[in-house]
């Protein structure tokens, strides 16, 4: 629907990348969001340098303390500094959130394109597979993964990725069904453009906006899903400070030590919001007709 409508390109002398950057640069909110994400990533990478305390250092004489100058986000059950745990936890949560969705998105997009484009048996088969994947209780799948592969953060990423695949696949398939009937795709096919090119150069860009939106929405919920897996013994194990697990810890203390839920929750919220705003900017900048 977008990238190949040649008319809109008249007079364009920039390379597509430069063109994209020119437009993206004007989206100030998206730029700020990108900077926030960069900041979060840098902070987690530099955790040993900037975190005021170790992530697992207990202080039994200062447990469940509210925010103070010494502990900006307060302390948890064991008197550990919540801010330091959030900074360290970014390493796990950001990578789980991003990589798992990226993996799931990649597989799902290809599956959806192929399924929607070819239709028929391929479509029936892969979509019914998606139905079963969607229907399959996550808790069972997670127990299966931990039993076969053992615990570990890599396995969490795979498990969470599997959950994302069918949604991406169905989204892209839906758009592909509509896009392959459009004039320009029909025209491209009639002049003998290869299937591969048709799918990835002509149809995919039209399906991309929905993909970007789901991608950015999914990052926040993936962090939460990963946390629920750590309760089955699959995810990061104690004392590692994963945001979702910290949040779950705080659940027992709601009304007594709200800082235990508030700050990890805020970290997830800011991450999710930044990815969503960035996603909006990206999708607009990629969409050539929006000026």
């Amino acid at each position, binding site marked *: 629907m977008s990238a190949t409508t040649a008319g809109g390109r008249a007079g364009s002398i920039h390379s597509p990348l430069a063109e994209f950057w020119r437009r993206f640069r004007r989206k100030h909110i998206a730029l700020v969001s990108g900077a926030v994400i960069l900041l979060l990533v840098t902070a987690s990478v530099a955790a040993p340098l900037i975190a005021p305390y170790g992530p*697992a250092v*207990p202080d*039994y004489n200062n*447990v469940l303390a509210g925010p103070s100058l010494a502990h900006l986000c307060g302390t948890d*059950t*064991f008197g550990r500094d919540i801010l330091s745990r959030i900074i360290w936890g970014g390493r796990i949560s950001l990578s789980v959130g991003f990589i798992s969705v990226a993996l799931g998105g990649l597989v799902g997009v290809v599956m959806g394109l192929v399924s929607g484009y070819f239709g028929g048996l391929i479509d029936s088969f892969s979509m019914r597979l998606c139905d079963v994947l969607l229907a399959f209780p996550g808790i069972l799948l997670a*127990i299966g993964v*931990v*039993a076969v592969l053992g*615990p570990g953060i890599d396995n969490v990423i795979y498990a969470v990725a599997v959950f994302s695949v069918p949604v991406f696949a169905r989204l892209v398939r839906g758009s592909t069904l509509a896009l392959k009937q459009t004039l320009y795709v029909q025209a491209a096919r009639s002049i003998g453009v290869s299937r591969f090119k048709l799918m990835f150069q002509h149809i995919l860009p039209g399906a991309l906006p929905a993909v970007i939106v789901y991608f950015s929405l999914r990052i926040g919920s993936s962090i939460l899903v990963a946390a629920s897996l750590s*309760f*089955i*013994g699959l995810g990061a*194990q*104690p*004392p590692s400070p994963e945001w979702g697990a910290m949040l779950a*810890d705080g*659940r*027992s*203390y*709601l*009304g*007594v030590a709200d800082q235990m839920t508030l700050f990890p929750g805020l970290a997830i919220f800011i991450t999710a919001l930044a990815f969503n705003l960035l996603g909006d900017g990206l999708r607009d900048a990629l969409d050539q007709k929006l000026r």
Partner: protein
Amino acid sequence: MSINPELRRRSVLTGATALAAAPAVIGARAEAAAMPRDLTVAVPDNLVTLDPADANDTLSQGSCRLMLEGLYGFDENMKIIPKLATGYKANAMATEFTFTLHQGVKFHDGTPFNAEAVKINLERIANPANHLKRQSLLSVLDHVEVVNEHTAKVVLKTPFGAFIPTVAHPALALSSPAAIKKYGKDLGRNPVGTGPFIFTSWTPDTLKVHASPHYWVKGLPHMRTVTIRSVPENGSRLAMLQTGEAQYIFPMPPELVATIAHNPKITLVNRQSIIIHGAAMNTMKKPFNDVRVRQALNYAVDKEAFIKIVYNGYADQMDSPEPPLLSFYKKQGAWPYDVAKAKKLLAEAGYPNGFETEMWGANNTLVIRGMQFLQQQFAAVGVKLKVSPLEVGLLISKVYAAPNPQEATVQMNYGGWSSSTGDADWGLRPLFTKEAFPPKMFNVAYLDDPAVNKDIADGLHTADPKARAAAYADAQKRIWQDCPWVWLDIDRIVDARASNLQGAYRLPDGGLLLNDAHFA
């Protein structure tokens, strides 16, 4: 589940009389009392069954207690008291127990309670063909003799000194023989007993019962109806008490106690329990095959801090492998917090720089919190602990997978225990004797001390309280010194109730007791 032919024939006889007697129907009792008489209790889980002989969770058992009673039972402090029996005589060998029964008691469906009913019930549970979950409690049963209408003689295959505590176990509560016959394997959804309340309904998360007008104890029950509702979220359960939707909730999460401290309408219940927690160490494998290592880890843990951090202060320190409320408990002393001594012992055992090990445990918040605490404490003496909370199915498959001690892969296992009979035997034998190695029972520490094995066997093979006390005292002393576990804590029963509710209890084993509940 099939019913054995003999049992079936007998039930037909009693069943005929039962059908003649119309089931007691409760109409609205005209009595317009000013005091509310409807009680709602919010509990954490769903009930599994209302057939006590097939129930293995304290919640189902406690709920059964509303409607069914046994020959003996427990009072609120878990002291054994007679219920449907007025007394018993045992022979010296502890193989024959003769019970005299209360007269004039009827089941809710009108069937008379008598020696025949005792026989039908006990033999039903003991019969392996019925596949009841509590069959093993009565696997020592040979047969029951009906001496006369109100006297029943129970004959055992082997001496069993702990038989009266077993009879008091909620699983041995008696059902109406007519109901057993009528409902068969659906008895668990149609309980008919002699208790203070009559079954009304049971939906997935709510059990309702109403008062029995003909209860044999005069003046009881006080409540008109009792509702047991399952409310799994701690915060939601507490909210129900705050809004008045429930008048008793358990457990009250210790970390939330502060939120009700200043509410005059809510009272905290804080009682002793017999639920112990500890971390078992595999005494057959390195490094825990050295008693100095096991003792070192007991010195390495600050129990006071453990209780403060993990239980918000609501737990007691252990001072014997048995909790004080269990029969034949003998105080042993304490393993004080002493890092220097722990390090010295580790060095003597050949681990001056500590070692690495792994601990398994369930994946609930309390256990995870407890294991993390141990991880921090062990780190101070150089022991690097890997903490692995596991989903319950995975956990048991790991613990019980090994057919013999040699193949066991367990290093440390965080677990708990409560002796559901309130007796020393079930408090020690399943945890610390050779016959209890997994997969048979729960000696996850693989403790095999011949003296302990003998003590516990001796205690079981006599009904003489003095001989039993001596045997269990020696066992407790040896086990305590040998440290198969890192001894951690005795839980407390921490609940919350409406301030005007009296007489509602949870027993030290966690079971509900509401017979005497009333508003004041």
